[in-house]
């Protein structure tokens, strides 16, 4: 296989030195993490690498040499570089060379041992893939591949080569801790060698979060203990609590706040995103609430709203009355129609049976049937008008429920991250072929392919109340025709009417 050398873009113009990184034999790829400059003491280098290997469980080793010089290297430098191969034994030994100011590179791979099987011609070709170290370190691949083996260097062969690269860079944080201002034994070049990235605000927040979380978690447990006491189980408070959507929302938010201020650290990145999204959702809720309150408060808008909603109450009352009347009439009509035909509804057997009626029963029955039939158009019209109005009210109520659901489950933090730092959420990678010259190794640039917005929403949406209408369209129409009252937007978990 062609040997793939992943080289960080930050090290493209640094001085000559040793290549430090990880070799993945299954995919024949060498992930270069940093460049170690001359002068160095081999013992100290080996100590540092052993330290990094133990702390990060990544098989970091010296992979080869990097030569960035003015012209072709002189004899002595060439022999010196080859001699290093004996000090740091690694199979295969990579030698990358670049002229100062030149665009094209030259690569060579040397194998110390004789190969077990004869190699095909062109096997020792090298392909250079440049990657942005900071972006690859901070990004997270979706779907997340679980790498169970955490022993040094062991990766299951079934995982993709790119997941191994991302994993290697993410786990080698210890190697990137030192910068060029540190007085350490070795001098490394990597993405943080110009100065370690840090933020005062983030550090202060981290220190303060411990005690604050503890305090708020205890307060919240007190509140939930009060809320769970027996007083609220009795009627009428429990009835109010289940009917008012404010109480539902309060309960929902209490759960969210308990999640945010829990003292357990998030184990993986999915939980961290869930926490961050919950924080954003709570803040949005508070902001929307304050805006709504200030809007309602000004210019007695509450009064206007109350005036507008009074006719709705009238409609609802009249609508229920006409609905019941219509329902009774339809039942009466259907029963008398059965009498007309000489049949009866058998309640025990739940079916229609034949029955012999007396003459006077038949006479009264036919009379009542005629009366009800001729009164039907009037009742039906009343029912139609009031049901249409009531459907309008129910539709508006449903829309509001949907809107609340949407706002509750929107993952704001993830969407903001996708907008402002698209490399953090990666769906994959994309490659671009850089300027190529025949006879030179192929150079590619690897960039992060960000996750599309639809997948961000799908992966990170918060769990919501999930109030979907219980009835399908057909059942709804049937209920409307027979005059049963409809409540399509019941919350899940409510008792049936």
């Amino acid at each position, binding site marked *: 296989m062609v040997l793939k050398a992943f080289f960080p873009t930050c090290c493209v113009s640094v001085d000559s030195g040793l290549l430090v990184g990880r070799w993945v034999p299954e995919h024949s790829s060498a992930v270069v993490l940093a460049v170690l400059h001359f002068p160095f003491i081999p013992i100290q280098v080996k100590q540092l690498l052993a330290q990094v290997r133990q702390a990060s469980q990544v098989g970091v080793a010296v992979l080869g040499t990097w030569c960035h010089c003015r012209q072709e290297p002189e004899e002595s430098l060439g022999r010196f570089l080859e001699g290093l191969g004996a000090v740091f034994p690694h199979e295969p030994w990579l030698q990358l060379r670049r002229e100062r100011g030149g665009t094209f590179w030259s690569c060579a791979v040397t194998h110390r041992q004789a190969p077990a099987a004869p190699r095909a011609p062109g096997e020792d070709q090298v392909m250079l893939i440049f990657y942005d170290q900071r972006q690859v370190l901070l990004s997270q691949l979706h779907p997340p591949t679980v790498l169970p083996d955490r022993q040094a260097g062991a990766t299951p062969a079934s995982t993709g080569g790119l997941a191994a690269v991302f994993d290697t860079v993410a786990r080698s944080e210890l190697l990137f801790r030192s910068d060029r201002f540190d007085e350490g034994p070795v001098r490394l070049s990597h993405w943080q060698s110009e100065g370690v990235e840090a933020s005062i605000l983030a550090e202060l927040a981290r220190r303060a979060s411990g005690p604050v979380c503890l305090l708020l978690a205890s307060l919240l447990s007190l509140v939930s203990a009060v809320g769970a006491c027996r007083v609220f189980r009795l009627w009428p408070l429990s009835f109010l609590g289940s009917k008012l959507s404010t109480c539902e929302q309060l309960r929902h938010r209490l759960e969210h706040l308990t999640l945010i201020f829990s003292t357990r650290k998030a184990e993986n990145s999915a939980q961290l995103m869930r926490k961050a999204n919950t924080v954003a959702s709570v803040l949005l809720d508070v902001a929307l609430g304050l805006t709504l309150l200030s809007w309602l408060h000004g210019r007695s808008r509450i009064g206007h709203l109350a005036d507008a909603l009074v006719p709705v109450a009238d409609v609802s009352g009249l609508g229920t009355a006409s609905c019941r009347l219509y329902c009774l009439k339809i039942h009466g009509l259907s029963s008398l129609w059965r009498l007309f035909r000489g049949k009866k509804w058998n309640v025990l057997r739940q079916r229609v049976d034949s029955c012999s009626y007396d003459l006077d029963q038949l006479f009264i029955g036919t009379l009542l049937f005629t009366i009800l039939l001729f009164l039907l158009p009037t009742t039906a019209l009343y029912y139609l008008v009031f049901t249409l109005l009531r459907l309008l009210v129910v539709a508006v109520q449903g829309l509001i429920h949907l809107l609340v659901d949407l706002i509750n489950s929107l993952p704001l933090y993830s969407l903001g991250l996708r907008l402002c730092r698209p490399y953090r959420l990666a769906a994959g990678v*994309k490659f671009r072929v850089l300027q190529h010259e025949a006879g030179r190794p192929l150079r590619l640039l690897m960039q992060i*392919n960000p996750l599309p917005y639809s997948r961000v929403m799908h992966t990170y949406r918060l769990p919501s109340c999930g109030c979907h209408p219980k009835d399908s369209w057909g059942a709804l129409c049937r209920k409307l025709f027979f005059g049963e009252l409809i409540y399509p937007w019941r919350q899940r978990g409510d008792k049936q009417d």
Partner: protein
Amino acid sequence: MEDERSFSDICGGRLALQRRYYSPSCREFCLSCPRLSLRSLTAVTCTVWLAAYGLFTLCENSMILSAAIFITLLGLLGYLHFVKIDQETLLIIDSLGIQMTSSYASGKESTTFIEMGKVKDIVINEAIYMQKVIYYLCILLKDPVEPHRISQVSAKPRLDCLIEVYRSCQEILAHQKATSTSP
């Protein structure tokens, strides 16, 4: 090494296939679709505006005219950004994977990269769509959930163009299989 040939798609429009051989293990195929024609654009705009003017003479509301202009502009922007594909590229790199890029008329590029470990084979498949028989290049994956991926979805080239691309891809896949089996 780069060369360009001209083919035609199933509707008779002209397609240009550009092939770049970077190295024996890396090849790129770039298919350029026919551009947006001024004639169809003018026709659609005139139809929409005539309909709006007809509504305006019925309703005497000038909002209809502004709405028609707004709709035309938004529709054109949406079409250029989401629908009209300018160029489709297939980059196949031995031992890394296959990358498919679609670049839209507004400059947006959407890329998909499939690792070589997941690719089972590349085939030409034929599909019967209404009254037409369409050939397309299909990448078979080892994934049981989504066993195939379609490439060149928008520019529908004819069989001769697909055969060119298919032959080159099979050369690289054969080379890759030969080198991966040897230790």
